[in-house]
């Protein structure tokens, strides 16, 4: 028996070129598994007409400050030049392709590739080529070589509320238009004054990046997978909430409000009360909330296609950057922050509430694993498909979180860009 079956020769093998049906309610599993899809995503999606989140402005606060990051698989340098503008360019020397900046960030006047010492300014312009004129009249670059014709690819930059976005595309709409009115407003709601970074770490997820991005948009799973709030009888089910999805489907925000019918907004008191009913927190002050945005909204999770998450869980604030690092591996880069004018009490509150999110987060640790459960579960199911029918089949804004509208929105946007 010949076991050397040529690719594509297996009968009924899925063809990863067509979606199963013309509906947003089905997602074929090959989309999380195919190397061809990954290559196409780099080209059409990450380098396409999208705004990739790069870093916070606060992380490149002073001229000469730089950070290194990625646009999909593409390594990128983000730097603030001495004209006080922020620039981003591919972290790839124009000569042989080596990384220009090797570390995660710092302060520099310029960059010199370690390989052959080609030198770049903070805008990514090639400024000097070692031995360009040769040595003692011998060697050197050819007469026709022009430095200005060589350099790493440059990104367009958009700044919005202290967020730095980059794009390789000339066709990407202006950032506010890209975000959509609702999502732009809800970013402004949180990032309304200067931020201070309080921590950074990376959570490595054992799954394709899309499974995490869908998870963040998926309001249906929240109270089902994450049982911290319900276990400790901190009732969230009656809370008023909702969701907005940008017209193109790519961006979303979900939110919940402190229930105004229940005047008791003191979580410490609620924690104590629940002691008789079952489990209770010994230190319920973790859940004391300051209504810092003066609107009663105690949780807002927001995404911007293709890689940005803004998190407000009570007073725990963070941005998350979703980066594919392999077919079934994703880096989730967390940056926690507070505001420059936080009081010491507010700082302590945030430090304590940061226990709610992150790789060890009471209401988020499961998200680090659940994508891997899917990835492992679908190992032999390239021809099967996921079902996304909660809340119907549309991507419209809804006054409930028992819906998968924003996950369908993701696929609407994704398929539009990918042409599949």
């Amino acid at each position: 028996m010949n076991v050397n079956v040529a690719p594509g020769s297996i009968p009924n093998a899925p063809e990863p070129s067509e979606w199963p049906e013309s509906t947003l309610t089905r997602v074929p599993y090959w989309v999380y598994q195919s190397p061809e899809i990954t290559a196409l995503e780099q080209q059409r999606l990450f380098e396409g007409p999208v705004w990739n989140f790069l870093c916070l402005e606060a992380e490149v606060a002073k001229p000469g400050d730089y950070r290194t990051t990625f646009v999909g698989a593409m390594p990128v340098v983000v730097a603030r030049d001495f004209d006080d503008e922020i620039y981003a360019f591919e972290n790839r020397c124009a000569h042989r392709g080596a990384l220009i900046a090797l570390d995660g960030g710092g302060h520099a006047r310029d960059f010199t590739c370690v390989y052959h010492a080609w030198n770049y300014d903070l805008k990514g312009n090639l400024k000097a080529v070692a031995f360009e004129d040769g040595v003692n009249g011998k060697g050197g670059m050819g007469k026709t070589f022009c430095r200005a014709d060589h350099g790493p690819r440059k990104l367009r930059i958009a700044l919005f509320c202290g967020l730095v976005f980059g794009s390789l595309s000339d066709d990407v709409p202006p950032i506010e238009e890209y975000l959509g009115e609702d999502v732009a407003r809800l970013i402004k709601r949180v990032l309304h004054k200067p931020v201070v970074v309080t921590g950074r770490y990376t959570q490595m997820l054992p799954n394709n990046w899309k499974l995490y991005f869908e998870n963040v948009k998926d309001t249906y799973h929240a109270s089902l997978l994450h049982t911290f709030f319900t276990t400790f009888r901190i009732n969230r089910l009656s809370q008023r909430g909702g969701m907005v999805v940008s017209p193109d489907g790519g961006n979303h925000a979900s939110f919940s409000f402190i229930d105004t019918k229940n005047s008791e907004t003191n979580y410490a008191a609620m924690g104590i009360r629940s002691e008789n009913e079952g489990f209770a927190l010994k230190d319920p002050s973790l859940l004391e909330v300051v209504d810092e945005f003066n609107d009663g909204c105690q949780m807002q999770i927001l995404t911007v296609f293709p890689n940005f998450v803004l998190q407000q869980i009570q007073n725990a604030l963070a941005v998350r950057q979703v980066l594919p690092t392999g077919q079934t591996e994703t880096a989730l880069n967390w940056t926690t922050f507070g505001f420059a004018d936080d009081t010491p009490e507010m700082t302590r509150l945030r430090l304590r509430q940061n226990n709610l999110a992150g790789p060890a987060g009471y209401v988020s640790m499961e998200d680090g694993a659940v994508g891997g459960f899917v990835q492992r579960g679908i190992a032999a199911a390239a021809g099967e498909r996921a079902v996304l029918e909660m809340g119907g089949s549309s991507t419209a804004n809804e006054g409930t979180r028992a819906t998968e509208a924003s996950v369908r929105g993701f696929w609407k946007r994704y398929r539009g860009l990918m042409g599949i």
Partner: protein
Amino acid sequence: MSSAITIERILALQARYTRCIDNNVLEEWPDLFLDECLYMVTTAENHRNGYRSGIIYADTKNMLVDRVAALRQANVYEKQSYRHILGLPYVTGNDGAEAESETPFLVTRIMHDGQTSIFATGVYLDTYRSAGDALKFSRRVAVCDSSRIDTLLALPL
């Protein structure tokens, strides 16, 4: 004097700590801390930068009790265990009432299917005080060498 903070008492506390976690008797873990304490898991980069946010951050013993309760009752994670391998504590200060040390750690994570990996390496920055006869942590900061956490951090380091 029984109240002196000797290296023997420090070693005994360190050994008891790792035993609590590795033998899955997490309920005893908070008792190794004073009521007012700091337990924090952070990264070398954050520590160097003076960033105060932790991956886990507890500034009362009751927060540690709650962490264990959440792991037992609420949080969902695949069955797993750790094996802590500690280096020797280097005592950086000891004024009789309070002592400080640095202790390197290596933690392997063993998943239910047998998959074993080096989960974390780093150093514990500890401060000890006596509470009655017992030596306790007033501060334990687990500074991980790497800024990467694989999948999730369920059990404490």
